[in-house]
Structures are given as C-alpha cells and as structure tokens.
C-alpha cells in the first residue's frame, strides 16, 4: 500500500502523520489548555508542511518538529493573554528541553493505553472515555450516574492514576 515518497512534501506529510502523538503531547505539556494546544498542533503541522523543503531527511524528524512546535507555543502564549498562561516562561523553557530529551526514548504509549484501558473494570473504562468525549462535563456525567460532581471527580483522578501506573509498567517491559 505504501510507496516511496515522491518528493519532500510527501515525505513530510508521512512524518507529520506518524508523529502526531508525540507532537500533540509535547505541545500539550508546554501549553496545558486543550483548545489552545489543538490550535498550536494545527499551526505546527502547517508550518512543518510549508517548510518541507528545509527538512534534511538524514536528520531525525522529531527534534526539528519540536523546535518549530516550541516556536508556535511561544507565539500562542503571546497571543492568548497572560491570564491563560498556566506556566511561567522559565518553566516552559525547562519543560521544552526535558520533553525533547524524554521523547527520544519513549515507547508506544498509545498501544500501552489501549491495553491498559482493557484491563480497567468496565464501568471505569466507560467513565474515563465518556469524560474525554467532546462536550461532556463532570456535572453532566455525575447527574447521569446520580453521583456528586466531587465524588465523580475523585473517581476520575483514581482512574487516571491507575492508567498511569499500568502504562508505566507496560512501557518498562522489554
């Protein structure tokens, strides 16, 4: 099904597509606002695409993509107004550098997550997936389940923690 890319643009599109998970989590870690992060991912994809000719295929793709992503993050922080900043400038710089380093030895997180989701009790799996479905609020989910929002929020925190531990375990396996 796949063939050799015809030109630099095609090569870049393939790389962008393949590395969406890394690009998204890198940007989200610097800009923990899901709407803003989505915008910056889109902008970054387009800039990468436009700069296809500048990319040297003998070099690894991610460091190059992260440099461009960081630039877009900074532009978004400038535009978004200070009250939407979660992190100070100095912390963003540190997280950017460490995130780049950490990503170079990351495993297949998506695969691990799928398998960990399967290990969760059915109710918990449904709840966490429902929480991430577009437009679902904790209030609405709590009402559906006749729970208080606080109790539901606490459950969500425990599920996240369980998933994190599970993923860590799976990624640590050879």
């Amino acid at each position, binding site marked *: 099904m796949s063939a050799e890319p015809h030109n630099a643009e095609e090569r870049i599109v393939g790389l962008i597509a393949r590395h969406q998970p890394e690009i998204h989590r890198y940007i989200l870690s610097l800009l923990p606002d*899901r709407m803003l992060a989505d915008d910056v991912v889109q902008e970054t994809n387009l800039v990468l695409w436009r700069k296809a000719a500048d990319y040297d295929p003998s070099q690894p793709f991610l460091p190059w993509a992260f440099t461009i992503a960081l630039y877009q993050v900074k532009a978004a922080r400038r535009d*978004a*107004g200070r009250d939407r900043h979660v992190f100070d400038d100095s912390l963003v710089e540190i997280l950017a550098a460490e995130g780049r380093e950490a990503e170079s030895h990351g495993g297949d997180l*998506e695969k691990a997550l799928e398998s960990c989701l399967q290990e969760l009790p059915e109710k918990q799996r449904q709840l966490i997936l429902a929480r991430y479905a577009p437009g679902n609020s904790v209030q609405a989910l709590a009402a559906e389940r006749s729970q208080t929002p606080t109790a539901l929020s606490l459950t969500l925190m425990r599920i996240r923690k369980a998933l994190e531990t599970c993923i860590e375990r799976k990624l640590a396996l050879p």
Partner: protein
Amino acid sequence: MTEDRLELLLHALFEEALDEAGRAELNELLLASADARARYRRATALHSALLRKAAHPSYFGAPVEASAEARLVPFRRGRWLAAAAGVALLGSAAAIFMTRPRGPVANVLEAQDVAWTEGSPSPASGRVPVATPLEFTRGFVKLGFPSGASVVLEGPCRFRLDEKEALSVIHGRASIHTPKGAQGFRIDTPGGRFVDLGTEFGLAVGNDGADPVVLTEVFKGEVEIQATPRDSTRLTVGESRALVRESGKPKLLADLDESPVALVNHAHDLPQSNGEEGNLALGKPVFSPGYCTRPHGSVFPPDNLTDGRLNDSGVPGDWSFWLAPDGEDGEFTVDLLALQTVGRIELQNTNNRGIDDRGTAAFELLGSLDNKNFFPLVTAELSRVTAAKGEAYPFQPFSFDPVELRYVKMVVSAHYRNEKRPSNHPCQGGGLNEIRIFSK
C-alpha cells in the same frame, strides 16, 4: 505528601479547574523538582493520548503512512480549508489535521470594568462562543484573532462571532488593528461590511431609531466599505464617513451635523482605571426639560450624563454626552434616589465630538431634598474642551461643605459656540459629558 499534592494539582489542571493559587503552586513544585516534572510528563502523555483517542477514535493506534497518490494543494488564504483538502488526498493521514472541527476563533485578551448583560455569555478570558450574541453594557473588551488582528470593543456593545477572521458588531464602538499579513479581516455591521486592508480604523455602530448609522474613520492604512455587495468604497488614512440610509438606500456622507464625521477618542487600547469609585451619580436617572435631537441618530438625552461613558464617545443614537436643545443653555436634574451627603461634584465638559459648537461655559449647581425647594451649591465656570484627538477630556472638581440632598440640579448660564460660524447659527447650546457626585 508532595506527590499527593502534585497529583491533586494535575487532576485540577486536566479538569480545567486549576485556580490562580493552584497555578502558582504547580509552577513552584515543577520548577523545584525534576522528578515532579517527569511525573507531570507522564500524566500529560496519558491526558494527550486520551484526548486524541476521543477526537478520532477510529484512527487511534493505527499506523499511518502517506499514500503514493498523495498530492498537495497549494496554500491559499483559507489555509485550514486548503489543509483539509490537501490532506483528504492522503487517505488515512486525513485525521491528523482534523483533531476537531475548525470553527471561527477569537479570544478575549483583556477586559476592563465590563458589565455583561444578564443572559449574555460573559467570557472574562479565553474563547468567544461562536454564533452566539454577546452583550455588555459598560466597559471595554479586547479580542484577538488567530491572524493577529485585534479589536477593542467599548460598551454598550452587542457583537457576535460567526466566521473566521471576522466579527459582527451589531451595536457599539470598535477599534480595529490588523498587523501585516492579516489583511482581509472584516467587521460586519447592520449598515454594511468594513474590510481592513492592513490598517487601524474605528467604527461607531448605531442607528437613527429606524435605520443603521455607522461612522468610520481610518487612523492608518486603508479600509474598504461595502455598503452592498456591488458597491464598495475605499477610504485611506485620515478619511471618515457616515454610512446611513436615505429612502432605503445606503449613502456615504462625509459630513454629519454640518461638520466632518470624526471619531474622537477612540479606544486603541484599554484605558486605565475609570475613577468611578464612590461616584454616587453613576447610573442614576437624570431629567431635563429638553435635549438636542438632529438627524442620523444625533440625539443627546440627559441619561448620558451618568452612564460612566466619557470623552464624547458613543455611537449614533447612543452618544455618551448630553446636549441642550438648539440655541439653549439648558438644565438637568440628577436624582440620587436616596438622601446622600454630598461634598464634591466633578464635571466633564463636551465639545460635541470635536465639532466644537456646544458645551458649558458657566453654570450653577443646586441641591434639593424634595425636587421643589433648591439651595445653591456652586456657581462657577467650566473650561472649553481643547483636548487633542485621542486624549481624555479633563474632569473639573468643585468642592463645598458637605450637605444632605437627594437631587442635584445643574443650570447652565452660558455656553460655548463655534466661533467660525455666525453668532445666530442654530447649532449651539449648553452640554456636558458626565457628572460625578461624591460624599467628600
């Protein structure tokens, strides 16, 4: 302990429930510890994966590769569209550019002293809701768009975000700035469309009671006015027009009220503090035996005197200042609605939007407990407004021994007129922008 605290903070962060103090604490924890940052990265990685899974579940986990037939379309102005079209050719890669539906985007960058109307969404910061009318009665809101264009809105204002790189302003004042590269940004008003050609311009969107009246002035660059889809006019720096309707047809006028159209004191940036603290008169009813009424929404009722809006701002049909009827000095009475101790009154004069044909020269202030028997408070003179364009008009304070009263009446005894016109010109009379009343 710290681990638990970090977990709680991260949970609040992902649930978008982290407050100011929480942000500060999270910053501190993460700056202090590499372990905490590693923990944060793991938690964010999970959050990211779950977000992506929710955005396009069918592509989750599947390896994606560019198809051999892939061809990219060149970028045009509608770049998201182009992106979507280009990527659609790439088969399974399509999902990557479409993490969620792309709609118009505008963010509230700053807001000052804003009073949102009951029932209106009130975004203090962040995204402006799409296709939803928003309204505020007082204050200033600055919006930013992805192209870099920004719009400062001044209340009272009604607006709506319908399309990308555009804003519908139904009523109110707007100051638009578009940097290089953001040309094409536009403002839609009930009177017509204003397309920014890389510039800075102001709009005052109002009405004459029946039809829209829109004033515009170009501060920098060029603007295209589209009164109808087939009828467009370009204005360049320094030019101004009033877009009105006469016999149902749109018409651009260079003069309004026998003077060139001008938007004095446009808010290019949000102003600093408003000085309203302790002002007993703010929002209180004001009565006058009469006020100036002219065509195209040039009406100046006395309620404008206590509306908190300054510097001859406002829009046609809803200006910020009071003018006495043509040729009269005029008077008005503020009702504080309760007995108050009053020891100081501040007045901001008007010069009728720079037309300079009206304003108060001399006056008497009187107090009353019952609106029948009045006692004198101050007899004094008021300076002519000579503020340069864009400058705030001064407030002149008048203090006296504090007295109890409910009503404050101002009787104008002499007014300013345009010296270049004959002394019997009908367009002259008393006027005032704002009255502020304080205990001491």
